[in-house]
């Protein structure tokens, strides 16, 4: 009836491409949208210039005491002078090279893992060996290193220790709980459900109090568990319940056919879970998992209430220094910034992981 010849591709109209189109479609698409755009700009105008003025333009960077600061600007001298306390708490000054080495080594390991291809066995061995090395070096008491009690650990160092141990230990525990909740065996299933629901119904502060005050009552006289260890146990057990629920939501995204294909191929339960189901379940749940880990990272500051001095607690302590009274704002802004760097990096890592593991959309 009719035959049509192929048509050449044309450029879109001028107003429909580039930044102009973006502004039209995203900022000015409707009267409502226009009002919000103007409101948004007004709010940004009220916040950003005064902050820049306080934090940078009027701020004081040079000097060594409170007397060098004056006027309305921020006094960053305080942060610089107290940096070691923010980062390492009450860790003895002469021994600061130890936490510094621990941090330098993990950075070096990270770079090694990222930029040197292959050598998976060696990398795995290093990752497993690292916590032992970090503990031996930080805690000391052997190889001629003076002992540094965990009660002296503090600041960012403590925050990182708690967050890392919490994440690394709660992850496998959470996987086991999630598998338990999926289990066909009634006893394992109900125990897992009870544990998860119980823990999720209790605030972390309560768990920390229990771990620090109630737990020792059950131990025989004379046995004194390290306070940090107690906090770590509490946080790990608490986080595991949340990790378990994240992973369970991942399980629900896996089609039944995947289980059946694994069964039909002859895979046993653990093989099926470890090789087929978990890799996919964890992949879909990465955004949630990282969300949980980010809130765990921030929740570490709650250990303050059982007398451990994390990064946030160190600000409170240093701002009470008689020579530096009234420096709370600078301290808290700095701490917020440090927390943000870490949590934002975690988000970025999560995004990268998602992209890397995304084999669903045909790359």
């Amino acid at each position, binding site marked *: 009836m009719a035959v049509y010849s192929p048509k050449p591709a044309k450029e879109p109209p001028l107003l429909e491409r580039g930044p102009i189109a973006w502004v039209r479609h995203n900022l000015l698409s409707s009267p409502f949208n226009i009002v919000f755009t103007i409101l948004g700009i007004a709010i940004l105008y009220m916040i950003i210039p005064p902050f820049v003025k306080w934090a940078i333009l009027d701020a004081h960077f040079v000097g060594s005491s409170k007397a060098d600061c004056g006027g309305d600007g921020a006094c960053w001298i305080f942060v610089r002078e107290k940096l070691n306390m923010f980062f390492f708490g009450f860790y003895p000054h002469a021994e600061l090279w130890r936490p510094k080495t621990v941090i330098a080594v993990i950075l070096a390991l990270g770079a090694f893992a990222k930029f040197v291809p292959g050598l998976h066995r060696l990398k795995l061995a290093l990752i497993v060996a690292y916590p032992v090395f970090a503990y031996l070096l930080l805690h000391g008491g052997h190889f001629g290193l003076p002992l540094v009690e965990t009660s002296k650990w503090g600041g960012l160092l403590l925050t990182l220790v708690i967050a890392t141990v919490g994440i690394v230990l709660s992850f496998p525990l959470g996987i086991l709980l999630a598998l338990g909740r999926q289990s066909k065996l009634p006893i394992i299933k109900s125990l897992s459900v009870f544990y998860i629901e119980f823990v999720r119904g209790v605030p972390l502060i309560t768990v920390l109090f229990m771990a620090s005050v109630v737990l020792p009552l059950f131990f025989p006289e004379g046995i004194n568990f390290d306070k940090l260890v107690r906090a770590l146990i509490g946080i790990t057990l608490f986080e595991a319940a949340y990790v378990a629920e994240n992973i369970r939501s991942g399980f629900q995204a896996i089609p039944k056919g*995947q289980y059946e*294909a694994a069964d*039909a*191929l*002859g895979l046993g339960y653990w*093989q099926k879970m470890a090789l087929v189901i978990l890799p996919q379940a964890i992949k879909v749940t990465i955004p949630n998992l990282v969300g949980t880990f980010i809130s765990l990272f921030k929740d570490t500051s709650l250990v303050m209430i059982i007398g451990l001095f994390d990064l946030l607690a160190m600000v409170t302590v240093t701002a009470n220094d008689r020579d530096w009274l009234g420096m709370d704002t600078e301290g808290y802004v700095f701490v917020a910034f440090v927390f943000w760097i870490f949590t934002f990096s975690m988000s970025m890592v999560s995004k990268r992981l998602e992209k890397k593991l995304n084999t669903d959309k045909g790359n």
Partner: protein
Amino acid sequence: MSETKKKELGEPIIQIETVNKWYDDFHVLKEIDLEVRKGEIVVIAGPSGSGKSTLIRCINRLEEYQEGSIKVKGIEVNSDVKNLREIRANVAMVFQHFNLFPHLTILENLTLAPVWVYKKPKKEAIETAMHYLERVNIADQANKYPNQLSGGQQQRVAIARALCKSPDIMLFDEPTSALDPEMIGEVLDVMISLAEEGKTMVTVTHEMGFARKVADRVIFMDAGQIVEENDPETFFHHPESERLQLFLKQILNH
């Protein structure tokens, strides 16, 4: 009539005796008796909901049955873990929705079970995998991920994956039902070549052309029962039961 097509069949390899199965109160398989011999090609047809998929899924215990007995190579299909392992090593299944593992490459999909379950050395598993990928004409895609392939290609990979453990029996559960029409042919071609090689195959399908061409026996199921079974010639041209006549009229008239 169809004597020309008759071939030598071996000893019984699947024995199903008066199997009954219920989903809660729903009686989904009723008194099923079926024997499949080594090298035989059996096609099961029937309206949806007739229990045909359920039946073949009982053979490798993806579904459990409550009464009767199923034996594969003389081994009882039951909750015994050792039996189950033995049966699943001998029985492979191809699914309607392929069920490839999306997080693994094609090659990894094929070597997963040989390496982890059957403890083959990795090199040998890869060689076998490549052999079967060539067999289904898809070796050039070995390092891609399943979702980068078309449906027809994915189903051919699934068949290759099933073949990797050299099973005695292949079960096909509506292998072409989820495919676009232009891809059905490539999958059927692979299945036909398997049939010609003498593999024992039990296939649930609506592809009557396939049944006519390669089946030794066609079975018609309706409402959880085997209603009629016959050689393809009789089945399609001289159906005895009214229900089969009606079914054939419905599927062949368009």
